[in-house]
C-alpha cells in the first residue's frame, strides 16, 4: 500500500434524512474523517446503479449510500427501491471482484448526526485497510 494512502469515498446522501444528518453533524461540530465527497440526491431511490459503477470507474475507493430509515422515505418507497437494487448490485459487484467493504448502504435519519460520524469513520478505516482500488481497465487492457 502506498505511504499515506487516503481513501476517496463518494457518498450519495438523500436530501431529507442523511444529508440533513450530515448537516447536523456539521453544525454540532462533530469531527469525522474528511475522506467523503458527498453528493446530495433527492432520494436514495434516485441513485442509479450507473452512478455507483461510474464512481468506481473514475477512481473512487468506496461508495456510500445514505437514505431514510425504512418507513420514513419522503417519497414513501424510494429507499425500498434503493435496497432492492443494492442487494442485487452487491452480488454483481462481488462477481466483478469488488470487495464487500467498498460498497455500503446505511439508513441515517435527520437526527442522527452522530451516526454520520460513526459510519463514515468506520468505512474509511475499513477501506483504508483494503488499500487503493486500482481500476481494472486501465491496468489490463492491451
Amino acid at each position, binding site marked *: 500500500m502506498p505511504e499515506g494512502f487516503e481513501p476517496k469515498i463518494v457518498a450519495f446522501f438523500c436530501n431529507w434524512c442523511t444529508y440533513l444528518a450530515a448537516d447536523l453533524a456539521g453544525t454540532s461540530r462533530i469531527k469525522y474523517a474528511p475522506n467523503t465527497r458527498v453528493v446530495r440526491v433527492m432520494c436514495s431511490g434516485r441513485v*442509479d446503479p*450507473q452512478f455507483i*459503477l461510474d464512481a468506481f470507474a473514475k477512481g473512487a475507493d468506496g461508495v456510500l449510500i445514505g437514505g431514510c430509515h425504512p418507513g420514513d422515505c419522503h417519497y414513501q418507497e424510494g429507499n425500498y427501491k434503493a435496497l432492492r437494487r443494492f*442487494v442485487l448490485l452487491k452480488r454483481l459487484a462481488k462477481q466483478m471482484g469488488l470487495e464487500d467493504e467498498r460498497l455500503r448502504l446505511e439508513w441515517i435519519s435527520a437526527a442522527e448526526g452522530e451516526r454520520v460520524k460513526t459510519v463514515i469513520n468506520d468505512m474509511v478505516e475499513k477501506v483504508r485497510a483494503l488499500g487503493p482500488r486500482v*481500476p481494472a481497465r486501465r491496468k489490463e*487492457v492491451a
Partner: protein
Amino acid sequence: MKPKVAFYWCASCGGCEEAVVDLDEKILDVANAVDIVFWPVALDFKEHDVDAMPDGSILASFINGAIRNSDQLKMAKLLRAKSQVVVAFGVCAQLGGIPGLANLTDAKGIFAEVFKDGVSPVRLHRDNGHSLSLPEFFDTVVELGRVIDVDYYLPGCPPTPKIIGAALGVLLGSELPPKGTVLAPDQALCEECPRKDTRPEKLLLKEFKRVHQVVADQQTCLLAQGLACLGPGTRAGCEAMCPRGNMPCTGCFGPTSRVRDFGAKALSALASVIDSDDEVEIARVLDALPDPAGLFYRYSLPSSLLGRRRME
C-alpha cells in the same frame, strides 16, 4: 465504378456472417450495388490484398466480433486506414458481446481451464530454419470502438436482415447520419413487443422464474410472468424476435442512447419490481437470478463502466 466494401470477423461466432447471407435474394442487390473487396469467410482475398489498397479506398468496412488477440487488433487498424466508414457490425463489435464474458477471468485463467496441465499455446515455434507464430492472446477483451475509430454501430446477436438492409440503404444514400449513430430505433424493445398491452401499469413480482422452470404463456408479458425479460432496458429493432418465440429478451441489441451501462440499468429495472421491503426476502427472491453478471452483462461486459473483473 461501384463503391467498395469489406467484411471482417474478429472474436465472434460466425453468426454475423450468417446474418449477411440471410439477406437472401437481397444480397444480389447488394452485390449489384457494391464491390466486395475483402470477406475472408466467403472470398479468397488475403491481408496483403488489403495492404495494397490505397488508404480510404474502401467505402465501408463491416467489422464484427470483439478484439481479443493481436491479429484482430492489427486487421481492425488496417481496415480502418483503408476505409472511409467503419461499421461495428453486431453486438460483439459494438459492446463486446459473448466473447467479452471472458473478462470475468484472464488469459491465464482461460488457459488453465481449457488446457489444464497439458500443452498450452506457444507464441513462437522454430523448427529447421522455419518459424510459426500465434497472435498474442490478450487478458482483456475489448469492443471495437476502444481500439479504432468507429463511425456507426449495428446492434444485435446477430443484426437482423431488416436492420442490415436499412443500414446499407442509409450508407448508400446521400445523407449520412451523425457519426456514432446506432443504426436501430432509439426506443425500448417493449414498444415493438406484441405482448406490450398485457404489461401491468405497476409491475411487482414475488418471485423470478427461469426459462426451464415454467411453460410460459404465449400472450402475456414475460416479465409479468416472472421471467427475467430485459426488454424494458433493451433497444428495439429485432421486432421482439425472442418474446415472439416465447423466450425472454436477453438484451442483445444493447441499450438506448440514454443509457451508458446496459447491465447496471437492466439490473436496476429488474430489482425495482421485487414486491418486498424486507432485505432477507429480497435476497431470497434474487436467489432465482444466480449469475447477475452473466444475465445483465451477457453482451456488454467489455464496454461496461467497470469493463472487467478485477483480478487478484
